[in-house]
């Protein structure tokens, strides 16, 4: 089958690889009908994540048709159309039973690696380096889904792929980002990052009852999408000082809750960015927490900073004093997708939201390498790419 394989920094190749086989009794094999490139895939593309091997298949946002099931699969049969959650979860351990699926204790065969880096291992993830288990990803014609009963959602008849594909990752992630804020009526929410996850965080904040949502970015097409599709007010940080603008908009108090939908490859103007690039070069930190620092400093006293942007390593100059002295709450995590898939499907079916609004570049699977490039460089006003195999 054809698959998108990693061969080094900024070197993705779509090539012929063997078809997946059933390895565990609860596996299912999907024929992939749609798959997307995630902003976090760019951290792999740009060489930020260690433990990649040449030939690794990437992709953790995918859906398709079941073509084979293992002997212990109960809820799926051949022919079912399903979306797959990006965290691989067993459903039986302490964390899965609490619905903290991205913390599953059983699905990372390389748990020893993650334990060395993080203290304990989170769950396995599709196509996201050997640190999360070395699973083959879904930017391919076929994909193996372990614990298929736990990790898939059946798609109702009549709903096109574009409407449901993002239940695999970015819609639940944005939603969890908003949910972690514990939004109260009257709240003003500020969202750093108007990429696809940020767009869903903005939309979800309104779904959860926010009064006012402000999106922060620098790319005009992303700010425009945030205004027109997600109904946010926007700040372009290249034209305005974010802190001062937020202070003015909130009468000096600051937004009630802040969402970091940017993560480790943050960018800004000014001294902070230069400092963080220098620190990275000198190995003083692995991640750039520019958006995170700003979110903390801007947040009102007693507010919540919700972090759904991906970080991998260590950061420098974290404003712990601001956090502690002002009773801030920091909530974070990889999304427990399985928890949200059904409720969010209902929102889509009710017409509350059509997630396909983020798609700007439908492409063929064969063109994935080009897709990574334009997505990373933000060329051609690219916001979200969906790849279709075999077209």
């Amino acid at each position, binding site marked *: 089958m054809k698959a998108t394989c990693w061969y080094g920094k900024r070197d993705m190749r779509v090539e012929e690889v063997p078809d997946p086989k059933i390895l565990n009794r609860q596996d299912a094999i999907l024929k992939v009908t749609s798959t997307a490139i995630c902003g976090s895939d760019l951290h792999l593309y740009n060489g930020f994540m260690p433990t990649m091997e*040449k030939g690794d298949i990437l992709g953790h946002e995918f859906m398709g048709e079941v073509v084979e099931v293992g002997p212990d699969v109960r809820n799926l049969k051949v022919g079912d159309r399903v979306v797959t959650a990006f965290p691989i979860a067993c459903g039986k351990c*302490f964390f899965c039973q609490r619905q903290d699926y991205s913390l599953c204790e059983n699905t990372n065969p390389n748990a020893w690696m993650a334990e060395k880096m993080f203290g304990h291992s989170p769950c396995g993830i599709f196509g996201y380096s*050997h640190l999360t288990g070395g*699973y083959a990803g879904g930017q391919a014609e076929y994909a193996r889904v*372990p614990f298929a009963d736990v990790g898939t959602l059946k798609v109702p008849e009549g709903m096109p792929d574009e409407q449901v594909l993002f239940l695999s990752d970015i819609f639940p992630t944005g939603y969890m980002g908003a949910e972690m804020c514990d939004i109260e009526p009257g709240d003003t929410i500020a969202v750093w990052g108007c990429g696809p996850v940020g767009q869903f965080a903005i939309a979800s904040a309104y779904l959860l009852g926010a009064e006012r949502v402000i999106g922060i970015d620098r790319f005009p097409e992303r700010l425009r999408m945030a205004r027109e599709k997600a109904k946010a007010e926007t700040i372009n940080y290249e034209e305005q000082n974010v802190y001062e603008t937020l202070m003015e908009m909130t009468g000096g108090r600051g937004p009630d809750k802040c969402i970091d939908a940017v993560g480790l490859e943050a960018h800004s103007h000014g001294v902070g960015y230069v400092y963080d690039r220098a620190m990275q070069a000198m190995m003083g930190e692995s991640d750039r927490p520019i958006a995170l620092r700003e979110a903390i400093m801007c947040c009102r006293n007693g507010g919540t900073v919700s972090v759904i942007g991906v970080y991998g390593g260590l950061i420098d100059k974290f404003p712990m004093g601001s956090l502690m002295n002002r009773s801030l709450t920091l909530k974070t995590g990889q999304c427990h997708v399985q928890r949200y898939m059904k409720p969010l499907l209902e929102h889509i079916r009710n017409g509350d939201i059509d997630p396909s609004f983020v798609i700007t570049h439908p492409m063929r699977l064969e063109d994935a390498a080009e897709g990574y490039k334009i997505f990373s460089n933000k060329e051609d006003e690219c916001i979200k790419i969906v790849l279709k195999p075999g077209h």
Partner: protein
Amino acid sequence: MATGTKRQAQKTKQGDGGNGQAAPLRSSSGAGEPEMRIAKESGVRGTNGRALVGSKKNGEELARGLGWFSIGLGLAETLAPRGIAKIVGVRGDSSNRLLIRMLGLREIAHGVAILSQNGRSAATVWSRVAGDALDLACLGAAFASPDTGKGRVAFATANVLTVAVLDVVCAQQLGLSNPATAEGSSNRVNKSIVINSSPEELYQFWRDFENLPRFMHHLESVRVEGEGRSHWVATAPAGTTVEWDAEITEDRPNELIAWRSLEGADVYNRGSVRFERAPGGRGTIVHVEIDYNPPGGKLGAAVAKLFGEEPELQVGSDLRRFKQVIETGEVVLSEGTVYGTGATEQRPAQPAANGDGR
């Protein structure tokens, strides 16, 4: 050669070198016994299970303190040799300064060596003792020489002697490694994991040793022969296999199983698995302790570590796989990992041409 205040401060900080180690938490089922049995057999420790010359752990702290002291002293000698010369009472001429600088570099090397082993290596601390001897020789020469401040030299000598005593005590404490057995030096591994199951179920599963190769990566097979005896075959580094017969030395249903290899084993080993009910109804904590002589001795173990065969890692991964088998029914596989000779071996995260790569 030293600044008197530095050595005095060091001496008071370290105290008397410790008086026993923290006992590991034991469940009320008295499962401290296997360790006591080992302690009695080895004969190195006293009858109450405590070490005779302070404790290894305090030795490590003292060693680290001496390591930092070495670095501090070495920096002072390298960067301010004239000042050091004055304090010690010798002339600050160029040849003395060169000597002091050289001694400073040596001192820094001691410190780096000690700290790089995190204070665990007796050999690095013994090297300090050798350095102290050299320092004393230099001070002796200084004493004999006509134009030195005798009082200061004497003071410096007293300080060096004090630290030399500390070094010897520390090196001896560190020399008390894992209980030395008659068969030679051994490695000990301790690992625990919590599993969503009852002690009864886990005990039953483990007690049938033929289940163990299902999750113990390195076991090719186990054959139970009756009367508590079994025959084990395991893979070893470089594609070889090792075999041994073992017997159960203790069997407390739902609590503890202990075993050891018999005469003629390729690899001497003994171990125990203890099942402790986890607090809050959260299942069972399984504690595994394994003592073994790595083929090739300590050097063999070091080489094996280089190739990713760290025993702590293996046992830890085995226990994780045990948890997977119990909680989900089987060992969870990914395309990027293989059942090869190493627990850490990786292949590209794509489907294998001939199935699962096993």
